[in-house]
């Protein structure tokens, strides 16, 4: 393990509007690791990804991506933003949707070269969604849209994938499909993955490590190292019990499943707020 870490934070503090979302955090992610990013709403999952993308420089400490300061528009990073509550009802074909992101930062008229078209079709094929190229976005199911966005994140053969809540609004079967596709492609291509989610259990078989955020802190390690009562009690800032049963792990606070609570609240309030079922 002497390779340069893909992402490293050294006593980094990341703040939004004066509020420190991550405080004095240090960890390093090695190449090729599949990391599940977990934690209550408002713990900084999206914020961390935005920092890695170079959109939000740390207020203190250092953050290094591929051994250098993060820079906006890095083509080695594939990004799947968290879906907004309403994706516009667009009658835009899947192919055009992905094409809009290729060199989308350049001035001038849009154009689609044959090579780009083939690359899009090949990537859609790799995520098992070849038919989405011709279909308009407004006719796609939630699962198909997530597959389309995943294909888009994979364009240009990134070395690092930042997937922000790719499972949200999917049913259990589609969640499994998305996890399997990411896992398979990441292994084949040696991609490092940060995969944020509300619930740990679906990810258990796929992830190498878990990065648990909460209360300004971060804990990185294997599931057995991190998902423990002492670590999570610190991250949630309340007494947490970890219950293992039938291959599942339940994170409980005073008899309530905090992940499930957070998930249910998310549908009411959207993300970015601190809604979970315990007192501060």
């Amino acid at each position, binding site marked *: 393990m002497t390779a340069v870490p893909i992402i490293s934070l050294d006593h980094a503090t990341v703040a939004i509007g004066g509020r420190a979302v991550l405080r004095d955090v240090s960890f390093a992610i090695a190449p090729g690791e599949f990391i599940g990013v977990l934690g209550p709403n408002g713990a900084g999952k999206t914020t961390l990804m*935005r920092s890695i*993308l170079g*959109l939000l420089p740390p207020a203190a400490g250092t953050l290094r991506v591929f051994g250098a300061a993060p820079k*906006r*528009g890095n083509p080695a*990073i594939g*990004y799947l*933003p*968290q879906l*907004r509550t309403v994706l*516009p009802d*667009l*009658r*835009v*074909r899947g192919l*055009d*949707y992905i094409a*809009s*992101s290729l*060199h*989308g*930062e*350049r*001035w*001038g*008229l*849009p154009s689609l070269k044959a090579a780009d078209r083939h690359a899009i079709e090949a990537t859609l094929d790799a995520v098992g969604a070849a038919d989405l190229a011709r279909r*308009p976005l407004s006719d796609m199911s939630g699962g198909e849209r997530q597959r389309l966005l995943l294909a*888009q994140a994979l364009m240009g053969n990134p070395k690092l994938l930042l997937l922000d809540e790719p499972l949200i609004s999917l049913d259990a079967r589609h969640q499994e499909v998305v996890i399997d596709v990411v896992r398979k492609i990441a292994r084949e291509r040696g991609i490092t993955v940060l995969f944020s989610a509300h619930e740990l259990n679906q990810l258990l078989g796929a992830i190498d490590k878990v990065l648990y955020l909460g209360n300004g802190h971060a804990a990185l390690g294997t599931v057995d190292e991190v998902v423990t009562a002492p670590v999570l009690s610190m991250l949630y800032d309340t007494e947490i019990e970890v219950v293992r049963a039938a291959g599942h792990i339940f994170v409980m606070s005073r008899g309530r499943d905090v992940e499930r609570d957070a998930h249910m609240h998310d549908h009411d309030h959207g993300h970015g707020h601190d809604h979970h079922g315990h007192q501060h």
Partner: protein
Amino acid sequence: MFQYDFVINAFIAAGMVAVVSGVTGYFLVLRGQTFAGHALSHIGFAGATGAGLIGLSPLAGLVGFTLAAGVIMGLMSERLANRDVAIGVVLSLSLGFGILFLYYYTSFATQATALLFGNVLAVDIAMIKALAALGAATLALLALIMRPLIFATLQPELAEAKGVPLRLISTVFLALVALAVAACAQIVGVLMVFTLMVGPAAAAQRLVNGLWSGLALAAALALAEAWLGITIAYHTDWPVSFCIALLSALVYFAATLRQTARHAA
């Protein structure tokens, strides 16, 4: 009817403006900013009447005010441009100012109707030149920002991450919409810019999925509605703006019905 110069002038002016409006409107609809476009035209009314008050040409006032308002809306985009109530308040205030300026400059009142409802049959060569310049500027700006505009419209979060300057794009876009609105208001009037800017573009988006085919169809529908509207007006003696508005509404509802039927099938 083409033996009359005023008819030829009307066809040339309406044709140029229709194509520019259809293409610009396509992006306005795509971005969900149609109400902002509507508001810009009302702000232009205050500009045009205010310009008359201080002895400038109404077109100069119209262009100046819509352009300034478009830039301000773009710069404040997160806070203002997508807030219907704030835009509505500014819109009414602008119409109010327009009425105040008319009150102090009563001899201008005859032109007020033309500003509000359009007067394409009174277009002269000088106006055609002005409209050509406005249209060319609008299309040139659009061609410059089209690629990042589409990216920022479809996927703002990803575009930001990839280094697209969202606020700059949004500001340049609303500035070019302002130019198109000023041109469009000369044909159908400030109250009815929706007929050429939004109706054809919205219909086109319901009929085809591709970007270029959508743009082409929006421009073609706007052009057909404008020219057919003038033709109907010539033969019936109804107001041109009414005829264009009627065609625009008919095409829009027909496209919506077709889409609904296709979904039900």
